[in-house]
Structures are given as structure tokens and as C-alpha cells.
């Protein structure tokens, strides 16, 4: 496989191609001739748009999957790098590259996207072309964030994601979509702009001899370490806020339930599956390596860890009492991402690798949960848990998959969820044993809220007449869920290939942050 990829020069074009395919695709989708909903069999406006979009996303996935083989785990540097000038007068370059961390995030993205198209298949009936075009553009933005090696480019991509999602929530969302979309936009924009100030500050700090700022990640990596502690602290704070909102870390999470609940199914899937990972990815890629001194400052580290811990338990407890299943899943994200934050800031190889696994797993499991909620909603137009009950009897396949996915979300061993949480916890225990023990109680709460919810949905008496004739999953729905189920099993049983690919980058990160983070603390070395 690797030699075949070499022979087609895969590494030379793959990354720009990944960014370009969706953009070109968006144009294609927009140019499709409109067909009125009434004129189509499915009652969907311009049904060709969804087909084209699906195949484009499949193409995108096929193109990206080559990275799995072409990626060399032993090489901790950038792979498949691209470096083109963009705005030379500002010292901005269009530089891309993957490392082990980005690799998995990219594959997660390209994996989730076609499924989210399937998830929107029949629910999106109006403005279909625009919808899929926005999904495609969003993909470019998300991949751009993962691939960017230039802080300017990163920031641009970071913001680019916001607009399509704003429209997806606002136009195709639920009842309170307008409130939710605006909240989502402004909530994330404020800290992002503060991060922008920090990025400019950093770039100027690194300016070359001719005064041109330099936003190259690699240069900043070495250059940012030597900056005064106070400055680094402020810059870290700006980055922290931007990422913390995206993650979201308690108490910056309140946009999330609204956005998730109001978004159409695909929107929730992408939000939870991919966009939340932007925050934690940001910590791994930028906040920690650029400001190790600030991030590893014992007080700050402890504050963040405690926030993560609060997130784990608070998210679970609040999820437990939600009457709305989608909101429950949304709050469960707060809990899961708390594990990621714990893993990242505990900063051992195991915990960081675990955090990465949780990121992937959460994308898959929570993505699947949102798809399942979408399926429920499509049939009954209700997300309230109390509207259901006993439907396992009429929809056994749905029940089987929902149960299975919930179990993976709970972290049942043998599913992906366990691998991630186990690694996070076992790694974090090395540095923060007490906190880890408290965090471990999170696995109990996860079982409580999810099992209670699925009991009230799937089990108990089938006592609502509306539910007696619910139809089970159809072929399209199976087609979008089965890959997720397969991924859940695969990552749960044999995650080693994934872990191996990420290990180099994770190790590099840990070493870098530990080394650099220990520099300002020389005085404390005696203890």
C-alpha cells in the first residue's frame, strides 16, 4: 500500500486535495439545478445534492484513508508537508502537515462526514443544496484546523468553521435555533478573538530581522519558550479561553446544550464528533507546547484539572436529570471532554494517548448517539425521554444499536470508550492520584445517566400508543450506524494501530512540555 501511494505521489498532494475537494464540491453542489420538493419522489428539494455530497464525502474519505498507510509512525515530524507563500508581507504562509495527532483527527473527520450526510438524508428538505454546500465548506475548515502549521492559517480555519455551523444550526435547526446559533457564534467568537490578539502578539514576538512577523508553528515552538513568564501567562490565558469554550470546560459549557439540541442531526454529530475536538486539539497543538511554562505552572495546572474534574462529575450529574435525550447526550459530552482535559493536563504519555483516544471515541460514540436521537426524532418528533418507553419491542435493531453505543459511551471494556478512559485514568494516576480517583467515579455516573435514559426509552412498558407502530431502522440508517458500530468494536478490541500512530507525536509533546515546563521551576527542583 505504501509503495502504491508513493508511486502516485500521494504525500505531495493529499493535504491540499483534502482541503480542495470539499470546496470544489460545494461549488458543484450549488450549481445543481433546483428541483422543487413536490416534483421529487422523496419530497426533498434537489435530491441530487445529497447524493453528490455523499459521494464527495466518500471520495474525501477514500483520499484521506491513504494517510493511514503513508503515515510513518516512527517519524515525529510533519508528514506530507505543504509550504506555500500566502501573504509574504505579513509573514503568513500556507503550510500544512500531519503528525500522529492530526492524522487521527483528520481521519475521524472524513469518517464522520459521510455518515452525517446520511443522517441528514431525509430530514433536510429545504435549501438542500446550500445545506450540503455548507457541510462541505465546514469540512474544509475543520480539516484546515487540524492540518495548519501556521498560526494565522490556523486562526482563519478556526473561524471559517463557525459560519457554516452557524447557518446549519440557524436555518435547519429546531425551535430555538436562532437563539442557539447566535449563542454558539458569539460564545465561541469572543475568546477566539482574544486568541487572535495573542496570536498576533506571538507572531510579532517572533518577527524576523526585517520586522515581518512570523506565524510559523515550528518557529514559534522554539521561540515562544523564552518569553517572559507574565507575558506567556497572558497569552496562555487567551489560548486557554478560546479552547476551553470549544472543549467545553466547565463553566464555559452552556452554549453546548443549546447548540447541540437545536442543531439538525448532522449538525449535532459534527459539533460533538469533530468540533469539540478542536478545543482539546488546540490544547495539544498550541496551548501546551507554546506556553509550557504557563500550562505547567502548578497552580494553573491544578485549576484546570479541577475544572476538568468538575466537568466530569457535574456534566454527568446534570446529564442525569435531563428530560430531553439530546440534551442529555450534550451534557455527557461535557463529562467526556473532562476526561480529555484531565488526560492532557496530567501529561503522561498514557494519559495524553488516552485523551486522544477519548477524543476519537467520543466522536464516534457521541456521533452515533446523536444519529440515533435523530432517528428517534424523525419518527416521533420528540426528543423527550418520557415520550418513549418500551420501544425495544417494536424497534429491536434500533434498541440493540442504541444500547451498544450507550455502553461504549459508558466505557464498557471491549468497546472504544474503555480504552480511552482507562488510558487517561491510568496515566493521570501517575501524576495526580487523588484527582484521578475522584475522576474515576465518573464512570459510575456515566452508567447511571445513560442506562437510566435508555431504560426509559427502550425498556419499561410500551405504554404510549404513538410508539406502538414505530418502524425499526431502515437500510440507510443501518448503513450509517454499522460503520460506527464497527469502529466502536475495532477501537475497543484492537486500538494498537491507532495508538502506535499517535505515540510518536504524543511522546514528543509530553517530552517537550515537560522539559520546557520544568525550566522556570528550577528553584523548585530541590523538593
Amino acid at each position: 500500500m505504501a509503495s502504491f501511494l508513493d508511486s502516485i505521489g500521494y504525500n505531495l498532494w493529499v493535504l491540499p486535495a483534502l482541503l480542495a475537494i470539499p470546496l470544489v464540491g460545494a461549488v458543484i453542489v450549488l450549481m445543481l439545478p433546483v428541483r422543487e420538493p413536490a416534483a421529487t419522489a422523496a419530497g426533498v428539494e434537489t435530491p441530487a445534492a445529497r447524493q453528490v455530497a455523499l459521494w464527495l464525502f466518500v471520495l474525501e474519505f477514500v483520499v484521506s484513508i491513504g494517510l493511514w498507510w503513508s503515515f510513518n509512525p516512527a517519524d515525529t515530524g510533519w508528514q506530507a508537508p505543504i509550504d506555500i507563500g500566502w501573504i509574504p508581507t505579513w509573514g503568513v504562509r500556507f503550510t500544512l502537515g500531519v503528525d500522529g495527532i492530526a492524522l487521527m483527527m483528520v481521519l475521524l473527520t472524513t469518517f464522520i462526514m459521510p455518515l452525517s450526510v446520511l443522517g441528514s438524508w431525509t430530514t433536510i428538505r429545504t435549501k438542500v443544496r446550500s445545506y450540503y454546500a455548507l457541510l462541505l465548506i465546514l469540512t474544509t475548515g475543520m480539516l484546515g484546523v487540524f492540518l495548519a502549521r501556521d498560526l494565522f492559517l490556523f486562526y482563519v480555519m478556526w473561524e471559517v468553521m463557525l459560519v457554516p455551523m452557524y447557518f446549519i444550526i440557524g436555518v435547519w435547526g429546531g425551535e430555538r435555533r436562532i437563539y442557539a446559533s447566535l449563542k454558539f457564534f458569539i460564545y465561541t467568537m469572543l475568546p477566539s478573538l482574544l486568541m487572535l490578539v495573542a496570536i498576533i502578539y506571538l507572531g510579532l514576538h517572533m518577527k524576523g530581522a526585517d520586522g515581518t512577523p512570523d506565524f510559523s508553528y515550528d518557529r514559534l515552538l522554539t521561540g515562544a519558550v523564552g518569553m517572559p513568564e507574565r507575558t506567556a501567562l497572558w497569552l496562555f490565558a487567551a489560548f486557554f479561553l478560546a479552547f476551553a469554550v470549544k472543549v467545553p470546560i466547565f463553566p464555559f459549557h452552556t452554549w453546548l446544550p443549546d447548540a447541540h439540541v437545536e442543531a439538525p442531526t448532522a449538525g449535532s454529530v459534527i459539533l460533538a464528533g469533530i468540533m469539540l475536538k478542536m478545543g482539546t486539539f488546540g490544547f495539544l497543538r498550541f496551548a501546551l507546547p507554546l506556553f509550557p511554562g504557563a500550562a505547567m505552572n502548578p497552580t494553573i495546572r491544578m485549576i484546570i484539572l479541577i475544572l476538568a474534574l468538575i466537568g466530569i462529575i457535574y456534566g454527568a450529574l446534570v446529564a442525569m436529570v435531563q428530560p430531553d435525550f439530546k440534551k442529555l447526550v450534550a451534557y455527557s459530552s461535557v463529562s467526556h471532554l473532562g476526561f480529555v482535559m484531565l488526560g492532557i493536563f496530567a501529561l503522561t504519555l498514557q494519559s495524553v494517548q488516552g485523551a486522544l483516544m477519548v477524543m476519537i471515541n467520543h466522536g464516534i460514540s457521541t456521533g452515533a448517539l446523536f444519529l440515533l436521537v435523530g432517528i428517534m426524532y424523525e419518527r416521533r418528533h420528540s426528543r423527550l425521554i418520557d415520550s418513549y418507553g418500551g420501544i425495544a419491542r417494536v424497534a429491536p435493531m434500533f434498541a440493540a444499536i442504541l444500547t451498544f453505543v450507550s455502553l461504549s459511551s459508558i466505557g464498557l471494556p471491549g468497546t472504544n470508550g474503555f480504552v480511552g478512559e482507562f488510558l487517561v485514568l491510568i496515566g493521570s494516576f501517575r501524576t495526580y492520584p487523588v484527582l484521578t480517583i475522584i475522576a474515576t467515579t465518573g464512570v459510575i455516573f456515566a452508567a447511571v445517566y445513560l442506562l437510566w435514559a435508555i431504560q426509559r426509552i427502550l425498556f419499561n412498558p410500551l405504554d404510549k400508543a404513538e410508539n406502538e407502530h414505530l418502524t425499526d431502522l431502515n437500510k440507510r440508517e443501518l448503513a450509517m450506524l454499522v460503520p460506527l458500530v464497527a469502529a466502536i468494536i475495532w477501537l475497543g478490541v484492537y486500538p494498537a494501530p491507532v495508538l502506535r500512530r499517535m505515540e510518536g507525536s504524543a511522546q514528543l509533546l509530553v517530552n517537550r512540555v515537560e522539559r520546557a515546563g520544568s525550566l522556570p521551576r528550577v528553584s523548585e527542583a530541590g523538593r
Partner: protein
Amino acid sequence: MLLQTAVSAASQAHPLSGTIAEWVWLLPILPLAGFVINGLLSLAGAHFGPTDPTAAEHEHHSEGAADASAISHAGHGADGDDQHAVKRHRWAGVVSVVGPGVLILSFLLALGIWQAMASAQPAAPFIQRYFSWMPVGDLHIDAAFQLDQLSMLMILVITGVGALIHVFSVGYMRDDPGYPRYFSYLNLFVFFMLVLVLGANYPVLFVGWEGVGLCSYLLIGFWFNDKANADAGKKAFIVNRIGDFGLLVAMFMLFANIGVLDFIGVSAKALDLGAGSALVTTICLFMFLGCTGKSAQIPLYIWLPDAMAGPTPVSALIHAATMVTAGVYLIARSSFLFSLSPVASLTVAVVGAVTAIFAATIGLKQWDIKKVLAYSTISQLGYMFVGVGVGAYVSGMFHLVTHAFFKALLFLGSGSVIHAMHAAYHRTHSNEDAQDMRNMGGLRRYLPVTCVLMWIATLAISGIPPLSGFMSKDEILGSVFARAQGSTLASATWLGIPGSTLLYIIYAIGLAAAFLTAVYMTRMMLYTFHGPARTGTEEEEALHEAPWIMTGPLVVLGILTVFGGWLNLPEVITGIIPLGPRELLAHWLDPVVGDATTRIAAGAAQVPASTEQALIGAAVVIAVAGIVFAMTRLKPDRLPRKRDAVPEHGFEGVVAHKYYVDEGIERTIVEPTYAVSRSFLWRVIDNGLIDGFFVNGSAALARGLGWVGSRLQTGNVGIYAWVLVVGVLVMLGAFTLR
């Protein structure tokens, strides 16, 4: 890396390599395949055509009988409805072959492997490494199986008893619409149970550990359309999760301190933790928390009685014979750790003893036949923990095995009773409780085989020689007494109490519990099979013995119950009566737990044979006394039927309500947690403070300020000019007055 090569090198030189033991991986794969096939059949059957198209119309579900309905399904298993003319599942034939078939194959394979092992007599475990599961830096977790004498014993119990129960289920679940689903869960359970006992490291064990919990959850809630059943399943899972939390933390501590998690590695490095150190004690206690969850010990026993909501064969397999004994297995497996910590070991023994007597008292006042057996199981598990707690790992395991026999027999027997009762009530459309002993009575006339076999099991569990229960229970009590005489435990102190004193107390508790066991078991038998029939005359006609496919396994289990004791005949008995070779099991398990047992028993004086004989005599006397006590004091013929019964008062009422433990937990933990989460965390903190005050508050503030600003814009030029002049003055002031 080093470790991996070492392991693979070891496995190559292992005496079992090249034998049938190489096929050990097939043991769990067979049931897994069964699970996949049955599961797909279950979904396929459901998807491509309802089993009973009229099901929805046929409901005449009685809301008032919510309690009874849990039971009313058990017999004919109508998936939540009291429906008639249930056709068998369209794939039932295939499932009946695949479901028990894979188990029988597994059992045969297990026998083959046992044969190989018995002849090879390996001193070291046989390890098969399949792939690297979670390799992260210095953390190496392999997907690997470890075959040694301990896991072999468990495999035989699991596949053997498991196969019998599968066969029994074919009859018991015959008409259930969820037939394939039932067998898929049951197969999956066996898969996970085998993973549990075969895992070569703690994480793989944990896979099985939580996996069996999952299956238990699924099977307890098998008739999920009843809220009580679904609740019970959920409760079991969550309570088990609390225990799993402990096991997880134990693993974290092991890895953080010695950097390995596989059994060989840990046992090699266990001494690095420091014998008797606080660290090793903490690890053991966390691990024991896991065991209390899985094996239903105080404080996490509360799920097991509720778990009786599942089909009765499930109770036999999972909640009596195999899964609940996993905690005992874990401690035996981790004997290299527990033997280092006398405090932890004593804790295990104390918790076991207290659980044994506590559950036995509750068992005295239960009316539901399965609940009696459930508390009996908890109580017997307590005995096993006493055994492994005092470092008598072999005795603990021995009791595990014999208990698997007689308790499975009891449960299946009760299944046979319920089956008959239910068929009877079904015929008369009665909503009476088919599991309540007050509705039974005199059943020996209709179920003679079941009655006899259950009496055998009752005598066994009560400790009547020479039945298996007598042998194993007596060994445990004997070991406690021996350890009290002198051992590392006896010389340790536990919460300020000298170890030997404590052990004598435990011994006394054990005897008392044995007495109670005899009482409540005899009570159960009397009320069920003897005295007048309280079923009702119409129903009596329908009462009949179960088909051979159900009685067959009962007979096999009966034989095992009688002769199970031969596995490990104590010297004190063989010394008197030459029944057969002595202490087979002890020799068998010696490579695994021998060192640990020796470590704990260090300094123990040989108990004189006369003392031992006296002890045995005392135990037998107590058992007989219990039976006699029950026989004389209980009056089956005066017992009112359930619907005529008056609730118990005073202490009896407290016991009948299981000391109100469930209610207490509900009030003090569950409800406050929900209340705080809902009204404080969600409403106040999330919606009120963070979202309301900070987020929307700041938005409202901005809008409010904007509104004020736009009000100032009155449209009157005069005002604009004034503002401008004020601006001028400020500006002038700023520039000139500095």
C-alpha cells in the same frame, strides 16, 4: 518489549505447548460465535416479520398486578404481555441447537484441555499472547490468555454447569418470543466469563468482569417491558460499576507503583510493594471493593436479590454458579497480593462473615422462593470470602465449585417449580404470584423428581455429610479455626482487634450462619413441597413435572451435588473413612495459590486431629439442629395464602423488609443526588448562574446599555449640541489641565 519476549519464550518452553491447550482461544470463541448467530437470528426474526402479529391487540395487561407481572412472564415469557397462543420463535429450532451446542463443545474442549493439563502437571501458567491491546509507552497490555490450574477449574465449572443450564433453558424458555435473544445473551455471558477467568492480566480480566456485568444487566432486564425488571438490571449494573471503580483504582495503583498489570509480572514484583505495607493494603482493599460489587457482599450486595427478576436459569448460571463467584476468583487469582496484606485479608474475611450471617437472617423471612435462594447465595458467597480471606484459597475455591453445583440445582429446581406453578396459573388466568411460597405447598406430589433433588441440595447446603456442601463449608470453618490458632493473620491486628480473636469470632459467626442456613433452607422446602397445597384446586390439575430436557440437567447436578465433595476430601475424613484420594483440589491448585497460602499460614500450628473431628462434629450437630428446629417450629399447614397474609411486625417486619437497606439508600443517596442535580446543579448553577447571569446576563447588559444609548439619541439637535459642547470641554480640560 522485554516482558513480551520473556512471555513468549516461556510459552514456547511450556509443557502444554503443542497440546490441545493451544486451542484454549477457542473456548470463549465458541460461545461468542453462538452469540453472533443467535443475536443475528434474533434481530433478523424481529425485523423481517413479527413473531406474533396480533400481539399489539391482545393486551389485557393488568396495571394492578405490577408486582406479580414480573413473575407472570417467567413461565410463558410473553415479553411483557399476558398473551395467548404464542407461537415459538421462527428460528427457535436453530437456536436450540446453536445455543447449548456451543457450550457443550466448549465443555468438551475444556475437558480435553483439562486432560492435557492433568497429564502435563505444569508448574507455570500457559500463556497465549494474541496481540498487543493497549501498548502505550511503558504500559503494555496484551490481549492474552493465561491457562493455569485455577482458570482450568473455573473453565470446567463455567462450561460444565453452563452447558447444563443452557440445556435446561431450552425447555424453560421454549415459548418465549425472545428465545434467540435469550440464548445470544447467555452465550455472550459465557464468552465474557471465560475471558474473565482466562485473562492473563487485570485489564483483560476486567473486560470479562464488566462484560459479565453487561450480560447480567441484559438478562435481568430480559423481560424489559416491565419496569421492575429493567430497574433491577440497571441497579445491578450501576452497583457493579461502583465495585468496578475499586478494581480500576487498584489497577491504576499497581501500574503506578510497579508498572505492570499482568498476573505473572505483578506476582513477580508484588514484594516490591512491601509486605504488609499500607500501599499493598490499599490496593487489596480497592480490589476487594470490586469483589464486593460483583460477588454481592456488604455493602454492595443490594443488587443481587433484585437480580432475581431475570429468567430463573439466568439466576442459576449468573447469579449463583459463575458470575457472582468472580470476586472469589479474583482474590484467589490475586493471592500474591492479598497474602501480603493481613489487614486486607482479614477485612475480606470479616466482610464475608458478616455478609454470611446478615444475608442468612434476611433469608429467614423471605416468601419469594428465588429471593430465599438469592440471600442464600449472598450468604454462601460470604463463606467463600471467609475462606479466601483467611488465606484458605483452596477451601474458598472448593466451596465455589460445590456451591455452583448445589445452588445451580436449587435454582433450576425452583425454576421447575415456577414453571409448573406458572403453567397452572396460566391455565386459570390467575394473577397470583407464582413464586411466592405461600401460594405453593404440597408440591412434592406433582413434582417428585424436583422435590427429591432439591432436598439433596438443601441437605448439601446445610452441611449434612457426606454431601459436597458439608465438605467445602467445613473446610472453610476448619481453616478459620486453624488460622486463629496461629498465622500471619492471627498475629496481625485489625482495627485494634487482635487477629486471632477476630478469627474466633468469624468462626463463631460461620457456625451461626450455618445454623440459619439449615433453618431457612428447610423452611423453604417445607413451605414449597410439603403441607397442604395452597395453589387452589383448579390449578392443581395443571401442576406437573417439567419435561426431561429440564429434569435431565437437574439430575446431573444432583449427582454432582452428592459427589462434589470428593474433589477435595479432607484428611480428617479420609483418615476415618477411606472415601477416596484426599485433597485433590489442593494439589491441583497448589501451583497457583500454594505460595500465598503458605505465606499466610506461616507459623500455624497443626490442629490436632481430635480437635478437627470435634469441630466437624459440632458443625454437623448445628446443621442437624437447624433442620430439626425448622421442622418442628414451622407449621406449613397453618400458612395463609399470599393474598390472606398479614404483614410481619416488629423485628420480623424489619427482617422481611431486608432491614430497609434499599429504602435507606434510596432516601439518603439516590434521591438527594437526583434532587441536587436537578434543582441545584442544573436549574441554579447551569441555567441560573452560568447561563442566566453570566452569559445571557452580559448579553442583556449590552442590549440594555444600547437601549439606554439609543434613548439618549432624542432627535433633538439642541441635545446633540450640548453633548458636543460637553465633549469640547472635556477635551479642552484633558489637554490643558494636566
